[in-house]
Structures are given as structure tokens and as C-alpha cells.
């Protein structure tokens, strides 16, 4: 039987740990600002009129909404790096000795990983929503709830990879490769209509596409969404379910026994 209280204690610990990384949080905010204020503004002048129309009138707004999702993704993935830090400092053994079951531990970590990235990206998300101008608050609320599930799924995904690989170097480079592919083969940066046909198939089943399109739908950029909202929501639920389940199973089986590099 899973105790929700214990799950929350684990999640709370992860949130507190995250908020201690002030330097990293400030630096990552600079990442966001430079992507929006430098790349976003310049690239906005580069695209044709039909592109601007296809993305809901302004590529800048489309891009800003997409960057929020990439930030949400990259911040949530951080939980995997935390696991390596803990392995490095012997904290994993300590965590295994506390009166919390493996299932509660990994669920707590997924929830904590998702919540803390939501807390962190929250102000940037509000700023982008202010730029776009929200037209339907209820629609936005539904989208934000789905994004919660998306972040839990990403945390589960990161934990799954971290405990499967057990090598910080390989994990770092694999996350870099996945990040490069998952972001570029999604609708976070550009709409599906402008992708060559051989990339469209992957983009249509990419969880970042679901999250970006659903967030845009919530923010009132419906015309910019490539995937219907219901399908995007189902995609996010499927992603969350698969990776939370995998995270729980692998965490239970592979956390013990050392072998961390």
C-alpha cells in the first residue's frame, strides 16, 4: 500500500533541494531570456508572411510558448543528474535506509521533479502568457493540468534512464542527444506543416509536440496547434503513464547493488 504522505515527504525534499541551487536557477533564467530576447526576436524577422499566419499571427509568440515547454522539459530532466550527485556522495544508500518503500520513493521523486520544474518555470510561463494574452482561462487551466502530468512523465523518463545507465557521463551525453532530437523533431520551434514529410511522423508522436500544442491551445493560439487538443491530452497521459510505470519498476530493480559510475 502506497502512503501519499510518504510520497509527499520525498517530493518536498526534492523541491527544497532544488531551491537551494540559486546560481543554477539564475543561470537557467538567463538561458530563457537569451532564447526569447535574442534568438526569438531576430528569427521573428526572418520568416515569410504565410509562416507568421500559420503560427497564429506572430512567430515570436509561437516560439515563446514552445520555449516554455523546452524549459519545462530540460528543468525536469535535472532529476536524473540529482540521482548521480546522490550516488557520488553515497546519499542513495541513505535514501534506501529510510522507512519509505521503493515505490513511494520513485513516485515522490517523479512528483517532486515535476512540481519543482513547474515552480521554477512558472514565472517564465506567466510572462509568456502575458505576452500572448490569454483568451480563455478555463482552457488554460486544463492545459496547465496536463502539463503537470507531462512533467511527471519527463521526471519518470529521466529517472528511468539514470537508473538504467548508471554512468553519469553516458547519461549526460545521451540526454544531450535526446534533447537535440526530441526538441528539433517537435513543434516547439516550428509547425509540422513546414517539416519535410520524413520528419512529420516522428513529430506527431513526440511528447514535446503534445505538450507544446496543448499549451498553445490553452493560451489561445489554437490555430497554431498541429495536433487536436484531445489527441494531445491523450498523448500526454500515455507518456506520463508509461514512464511513471517504467520509472517505478526500474527504480525498484536497479537502485540497489551499486555499480554507479
Amino acid at each position, binding site marked *: 500500500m502506497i502512503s501519499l504522505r510518504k510520497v509527499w515527504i520525498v517530493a518536498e525534499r526534492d523541491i527544497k533541494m532544488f531551491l537551494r*541551487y540559486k*546560481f*543554477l536557477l539564475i*543561470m*537557467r533564467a*538567463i*538561458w530563457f531570456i*537569451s*532564447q526569447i530576447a*535574442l*534568438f526569438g*526576436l*531576430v*528569427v*521573428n*524577422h*526572418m*520568416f*515569410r508572411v504565410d*509562416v507568421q499566419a500559420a503560427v497564429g499571427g506572430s512567430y515570436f509568440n509561437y516560439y515563446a510558448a514552445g520555449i516554455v515547454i523546452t524549459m519545462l522539459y530540460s528543468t525536469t530532466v535535472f532529476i536524473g*543528474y540529482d540521482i548521480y*550527485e546522490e550516488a557520488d556522495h553515497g546519499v542513495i544508500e541513505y535514501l534506501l535506509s529510510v522507512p519509505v518503500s521503493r515505490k513511494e520513493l520513485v513516485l515522490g521523486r517523479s512528483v517532486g521533479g515535476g512540481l519543482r520544474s513547474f515552480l521554477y518555470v512558472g514565472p517564465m510561463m506567466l510572462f509568456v502568457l502575458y505576452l500572448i494574452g490569454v483568451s480563455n482561462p478555463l482552457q488554460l487551466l486544463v492545459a496547465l493540468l496536463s502539463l503537470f502530468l507531462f512533467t511527471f512523465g519527463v521526471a519518470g523518463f529521466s529517472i528511468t534512464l539514470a537508473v538504467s545507465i548508471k554512468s553519469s*557521463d*553516458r547519461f*549526460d*551525453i*545521451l540526454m*544531450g*542527444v535526446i534533447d*537535440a*532530437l526530441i526538441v*528539433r*523533431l517537435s513543434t516547439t*520551434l*516550428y509547425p509540422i506543416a*513546414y*517539416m*519535410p514529410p520524413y*520528419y512529420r511522423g516522428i513529430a506527431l508522436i513526440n511528447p514535446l509536440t503534445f505538450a507544446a500544442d496543448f499549451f498553445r491551445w490553452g493560451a489561445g493560439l489554437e490555430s497554431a496547434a498541429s495536433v487536436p487538443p484531445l489527441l494531445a491530452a491523450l498523448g500526454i497521459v500515455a507518456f506520463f503513464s508509461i514512464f511513471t510505470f517504467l520509472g517505478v519498476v526500474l527504480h525498484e530493480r536497479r537502485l540497489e547493488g551499486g555499480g554507479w559510475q
Partner: protein
Amino acid sequence: MAVKPILTIVERDFKYFFRYKWWVAGMVSMNLADLFIMAIVYTRMVKPDVITDYFVFFAPGLTITALFAAAFMIGREINMEVRREISHYMLSLPVKRWELAIGRVLAGGLRGIIYMAPLLATTLGITYLYTGAFPAPLEFLTILAALFLVSLGTSGLSIALAVSTTSFEKYITARGVVYYLLFFCSTVFYPIGLIERALPQLTLLARYNPLSCGADLSRAFLLRSPPFSPYMLVDIALYALVFASLALFAYMKVTQK
């Protein structure tokens, strides 16, 4: 100061570089994703009067992104050495500190060039196929020299960053900040005219950004636009000199602690 100990250090760092096959494979795939996914999609979206073919425009920029990633790897290793106090072992070697520091900075620069070589060949192939232009031997040597200097400067920058913190996460995050600020305020991804229109207050910074000079110098010989200007080489040489010197002093200071 002897050359042989410096070469030994360079050789050691070189061998280490090729031990990280996973990293190299990962970096190549990241760089190729930029060219074969992002640039291809952008080509379908860009105004033709701004950039005729974004894929071809971006190809020379790819060498700079590749070079930057590879040259920054030396910083990652030095950061790890400082954290795990392997630098103490390095100090016990029969090599002077100056020689050790010069060897590390040089190795970082050379690793960038070696890693970038296949990507430069890809760029040459793409620009030749699309434009029919191929650089003359002297032009090609100028590109190589300029890229080596960019690599040397970047290696220096990464070492200076690496020794300023003992936290790996801080180093990785600071690398991200440097990457975004240097690349987005340069002509690697877009031409200077576009920066002038969108962010006029940053034009000067973007024009004299060494990454802009490196990318534009390559484009001058590979795409014949923008025109080559000697100031590009001077700018890149200054970047290399400043950051290589900074790295030498910072590395020596940290290893002396």
C-alpha cells in the same frame, strides 16, 4: 620552456579525447541534428530575400558550433580534475607549470579542430553541391587558421570557466549561458542585417563577436558572401590571445592552491 613536455601533455589530452567515443558520437549527432533537422525546416520558412537558402547559409555556422562543443570538452575534464584533485597528480609530473598550462590550452584548441574536420568536410561538400563554389588553397588555409584560433580561444574560455568553480553542474550551466549569449548574439544562425533590424543596439557586439567573424570568414570563402575583411582575422586572433592567456594564468593559479 621546452617544446617536448608541452607536446607530451598535448598527446595525453588527445588520447583522452578519443577515449570518449560516446561523447564524440553524441556531439556529432547533436551538431548534425542542427543542420539536417532545424536548418532544413527553417529553409522552408525563411523569406528568400533575407536568406536564399538557409540550409546552405547555416552550413558554415555548423563548423563553429561543432568547434565550440569540442573545445569546451577540455574544460569539462579540467573541472573534473579540480573536483577530484587529480590536478595534484598533474603537478607531480616532471613538467613545469607553464608547460602544463600551455599544453592543456593547446590540446583543447587542437581537439576542436580535429573534431570539426569531418563537419568542415560536410560543409565543403554542401556548399560545393549547392553553389558550385570551392575555396582556393590559400583561402582554405585561411579558414583552417581562423577556425584553429577560434578553437584556441574557446578552449581558453572553457578552462577559465572550469577552474572558477568546483561544481560540475555550475560549470555545465555556465557553459549553457556562454553558449546562448555568444551564439545568439552572432551571425552563426542569421545574417548581420537581420540583427541590425531586430536588435540594432546589439549590432556592434554581434559584428565583433569572434564567432561571427569565424562564421563570416568561412562564408566569405565558401559562399562568397559576406566579403572577406582582414579585421575578421584580427578579431579572432585577439579573442584567442585574450582567452588563452586568461586560461594559462587561471589554470596555474588553481593548480598552485
